[in-house]
């Protein structure tokens, strides 16, 4: 995995971007100007945003960001801990040497990361950089937000009369995660996985490396989180709820409709079970697809995966995950529900 290791320092790196030199755009100055401008213009800005649609857009946008931020910070802290304090040899010992076996082990290990999908993206990124087989790290990425105890408990609370839903969600999510891991191992090419060049975070003192990793991850993943939140808020404001009514009748269409809805809504995996429970006009299988697809691929996650693993990766990985998740949840739903 040569492409996943840190970029070597080059001559171009000599320049400290903190110094404004020779007509280069100074971002601190730009930021301060921007802040001042917005504060001065806050009256017109508020007026422009006073329409009910704009207000509800802003509320949903703020809510998605605010809700995801603590989990993002948790994931970023874990990722920094892995990057700075856990030696690569640890993972070499902890995971089975054969990737085919490491995939399910990593998938099950996803159960220990409490929280939602925002935490798992930076952690999976750190695992790849720490030399974990990408196939195993990807299985972890997909399984962690869906099968941890918090999410499964929420599912049980949301479906009090269908306890089999919890089991079905666990099985389907784990199967999809492992299948994607194995698929990546067979078909994945290392050059698809192109994480943005990032600092090595070593040698400069562990404190400095730790905080540099935290800052870097928050700025990047946070930026992509904002992109995802904007997309989710727009779709929530634009897509009318009546759009769903027609889809509920046909079994095949209903599964696809709820899978697409899970992608568009980008709801946190701790809350999606409650939303699924309220979509009572849909079959249990369709709602299972909603619960399996949502934590694995949605707009917010796609943006964050692009930021962490590169666009070439996200463009291939996301559709494959979606198709596999829909197929597996349909099969598991047919057997268990």
């Amino acid at each position, binding site marked *: 995995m040569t492409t996943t290791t840190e970029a070597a320092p080059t001559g171009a*790196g*000599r320049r400290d971007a903190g110094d404004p030199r020779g007509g280069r755009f100074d971002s601190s100055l730009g*930021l301060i100007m921007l802040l001042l401008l917005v504060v001065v213009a806050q009256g017109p800005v508020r007026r422009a945003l006073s329409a009910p649609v704009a207000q*509800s857009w802003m509320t949903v946008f703020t809510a998605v960001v605010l809700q995801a*931020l603590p989990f993002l910070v948790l994931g970023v802290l874990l990722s920094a801990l892995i990057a700075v304090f856990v030696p690569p040899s640890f993972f070499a010992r902890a995971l089975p040497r054969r990737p085919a076996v490491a995939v399910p082990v990593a998938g099950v290990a996803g159960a220990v990361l409490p929280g939602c999908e925002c935490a798992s993206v930076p952690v999976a990124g750190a695992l790849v950089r720490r030399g974990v087989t990408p196939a195993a790290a990807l299985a972890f990425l997909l399984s962690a937000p869906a099968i941890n105890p918090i999410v499964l408990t929420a599912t049980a609370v949301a479906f009090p009369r269908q306890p089999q839903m919890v089991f079905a969600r666990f099985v389907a999510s784990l199967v999809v995660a492992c299948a994607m891991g194995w698929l990546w191992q067979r078909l994945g090419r290392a050059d698809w996985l192109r994480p943005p060049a990032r600092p090595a975070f*070593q040698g400069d003192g562990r*404190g400095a490396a730790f905080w540099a990793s935290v800052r870097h991850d928050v700025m990047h993943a946070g*930026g992509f989180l904002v992109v995802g939140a904007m997309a989710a808020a727009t779709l929530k404001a634009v897509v009318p*709820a009546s759009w769903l009514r027609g889809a509920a009748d046909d079994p095949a269409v209903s599964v696809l409709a709820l899978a697409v809805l899970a992608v568009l809504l980008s709801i946190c995996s701790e809350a999606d079970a*409650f939303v699924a429970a309220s979509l009572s006009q849909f079959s249990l299988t369709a709602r299972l697809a909603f619960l399996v697809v949502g934590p694995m691929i949605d707009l917010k996650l796609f943006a964050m995966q692009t930021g962490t693993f590169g666009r070439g990766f996200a463009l291939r990985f996301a559709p494959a995950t979606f198709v596999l998740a829909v197929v597996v949840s349909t099969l598991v739903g047919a057997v268990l529900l």
Partner: protein
Amino acid sequence: MNRKAQAIVLFLVGGAVLRAGSTDLYLRYVKAGLRPLLLAAGVVLMAAAVATVWYERRARVADEGAVDGVGEGTREGSGEVSGEGLRESEGGHGHREPRVSWLLVLPLFALILVAPPALGSYTAMHTGTALQRPWGFPALPAGDPLPLNVADYAGRAVYDHGRSLEHRTVKITGFVALDGHGAPYLVRMALNCCAADAQPVKIGLTGRIPPVLEPDTWLQAIGTYTAKRSKDPVGGGAIPYLEVSRSRPVPAPRDPYDESWNG
């Protein structure tokens, strides 16, 4: 975005989250249980900003101390600084990665300058009622009028056919929403995690309704069960009615959402 600017953004975002979490502002957007996590996240972000400035200063001091260039060389050798420089200069050459960090100022503006209100009548009337069959119908406590929340009343009215509500006067608080024909509803948004998953539960008002009702004002309605029922035009869910005998405007509650579903 250079590291100084990143530190400013981190500090401000952390401060905004901390402020939202230490006041009731966060209740407009997320569930109450998220508060400790929000406060912790705010503190971590601010600490990251302070650490960035601190290590940046130390590096600069080390740089200035190394006049003959030897220090410069050792600094290049450290992966942190050189890798960082590489990425930032890539940013200068049209590599798009660091630019996305600029978007972090948007939630900052949203939280500090606009602080949008909790979801209200607009969302409520564009979303179908999310009433679910309750677990059971425990006996209601004594009290006249008896305070009930919107979802509890609606659940008993629709799924228990109002059996437990007969001969009782109930007191329900919610915000007002008007449909296309101006018919009033008393609504409470139920929330599981954040406002993105908030869903309304609606009760239709009939009887002695105040002549002028402004959408989004909070109202305490006192009345009795009526068998009148209607179908929500959005989503087709059942909407029970309340025969209002008197009502009064009340201030918005501390937590605008109904979080009873969180258990």
